[in-house]
């Protein structure tokens, strides 16, 4: 107990108060920049219709109401495909796509970073180059490929492209490269198989990396259904995702502005929840993971 107190005091000695304050102020300022649109979104979702189009707009809602959410669910109550189906579709696609992407990318990244396989530099150059290419160009050939594989109008049309994205591979490889070779050698000398080294040593060490990758991948897949891809790959209404349903139903224009704000807020909450969940997990592993040498 005494020791910890002394340590804390020493830590404070190392820092200067004014610099800390300046740093905090800078962080708070830029944080406010980021926060403003979100606060505005929440307050818009709670605004009644007459307040929504006030000019100048009120930044904080004056008479908060849940009418917008109520209206949104009322719209869905009459839809042909129930809301729960859209929900299921979105979750299914996002979770499966994310899981597959993270696992496949990590598995592919390990040999590229740490094993001597023929042509690994060439392969990695290919990965980086592929990241450099604007995705719009390949969208038409992509459609043809998906259709050729017979995946059109199935969940797999949304999930498979996520598997093959090279961003995850690139990120995981960069992180795995930082693992000291001596650690892996030690494991090898102790008789661990490559498979075991991968799952029990490499993956726990790069845990912060794949938790971060989960966020990226999930965020991407969460909104995939309403993009040009999602809209053209899947044409059965019962396979469409939530964001597509929202965007379609809410394209009604002016009158639907209220439910639209509510829908935008609802769509935001899940990625934010995932973000907070994974990030707080990172903190917990921090003390236990890490290399001892």
């Amino acid at each position, binding site marked *: 107990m005494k020791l910890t107190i002394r340590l804390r005091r020493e830590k404070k000695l190392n*820092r200067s108060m004014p610099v800390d304050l300046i*740093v905090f102020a800078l*962080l708070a300022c*830029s944080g406010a*920049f980021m*926060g403003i*649109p*979100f606060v*505005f979104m929440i307050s*818009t979702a709670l605004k009644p219709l007459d307040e929504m189009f006030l000019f*100048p707009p009120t*930044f904080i809602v004056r008479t908060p109401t849940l009418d917008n959410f109520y209206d949104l669910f009322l719209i869905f109550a009459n839809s042909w495909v129930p809301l729960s189906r859209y929900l299921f579709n979105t979750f299914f696609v996002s979770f499966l796509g994310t899981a597959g992407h993270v696992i*496949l*990318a990590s598995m*592919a990244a390990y*040999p590229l970073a740490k*094993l*001597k396989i023929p042509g*690994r530099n060439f*392969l990695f150059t290919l990965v980086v*180059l*592929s990241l450099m*290419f*604007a*995705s*719009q*160009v390949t969208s038409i*050939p992509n459609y*043809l*490929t998906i259709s050729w594989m017979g995946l059109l109008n199935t969940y797999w049309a949304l999930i*498979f492209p996520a*598997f*093959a994205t090279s961003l995850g591979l*690139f990120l995981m490889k*960069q992180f795995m*490269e*930082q693992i000291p*070779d001596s650690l892996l050698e030690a494991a090898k000398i102790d008789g661990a198989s*490559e498979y075991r080294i991968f799952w029990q040593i490499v993956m726990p060490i*790069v845990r*912060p990396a794949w*938790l*971060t990758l989960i*966020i990226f991948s999930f*965020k991407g897949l969460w*909104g995939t259904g309403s*993009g*040009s891809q999602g809209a053209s790959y899947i044409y059965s209404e019962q396979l469409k995702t939530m964001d597509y349903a929202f*965007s379609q139903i809410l*394209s009604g*224009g002016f009158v639907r*502005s209220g439910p639209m*704000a509510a829908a935008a807020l609802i*769509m935001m909450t899940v990625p*934010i929840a995932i*973000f907070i969940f994974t*990030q707080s997990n990172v*903190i917990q592993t921090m003390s236990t993971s*890490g290399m*001892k040498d």
Partner: protein
Amino acid sequence: MMKGVTLLQKKSLLGVLFVSPWFLGFIFLFAIPLYQSLVYSFNNLVVAIGGFDTEFAGLKFYEEIFYKHPTFNRLLMESIVDLVINIPSIVIFSLFAATLLNQKFRGRVLARAIFFLPVLLATNLLTIEQSSDLATVAQTVTGGVDGEGLKSSELEALMLQSGFGSGITSYITGSVNRIYEIISHSGVQILIFLAGLQSVSPSLYEAAKIEGATSYESFWKITFPMVSPLILTNIIYTVIDSYNYNKLSVLINDTAFKALDFSLSAAMSWVYFGVTSIILLILVRAVSSKVFYYD
């Protein structure tokens, strides 16, 4: 299991096994489409029964881009300049923010979430929303902040008078004007740096502390070298991310899906791809010699 296979071959076989699921997907969903887009850029596409036929056109589309297209050259230049200014600014800002957010304080998950918000806000539904009446309202509130509030003409005059070169002055004032853009595009980079900072072993800091290093010293001697490979990662990510918001990709997209000129659009993106690859190659060469790998 297998006879006549050396240990080395067996090991590389395992590596190949690990890579192959991803690689198959990559071939089908990326390499083949990419090759096709290259073919399109050299050919006229003629609609035929059950698809389209190609008709060789040589360099016609590339000529059209550079000599005839009204905006392509300007947009290309703009996006290159943007990229060159944004890369260092974003990388420095995100390293700075990540170091701060990595410290132990109350509500730091929340603080991180705030910095990641712009990335989440950029999802598709929100872009649909932006095109509506609501967005104009939103922009009068949020857009006003970055547009009017942060003009740097005074700073520019001040810096020029105190004898800074005009190059560095325009770089700094340029970055100041872009503050909002930079902050809102560094969410992912901050997270990447954070993940890197978290995999730095605490024992290194402990040892440094026992040896009497100040936190300033331990930042430059431990933190910075340990995350330096990620600087490269973030540079590359920044380039990739720029495709999502710059005007040139909008032009490429519009040429393909509004003007329905796929060949021209394919040619445009190959030019763009070539230019960014060259920039990236120079950057990677310059940075990777300074990168530290823990061994």
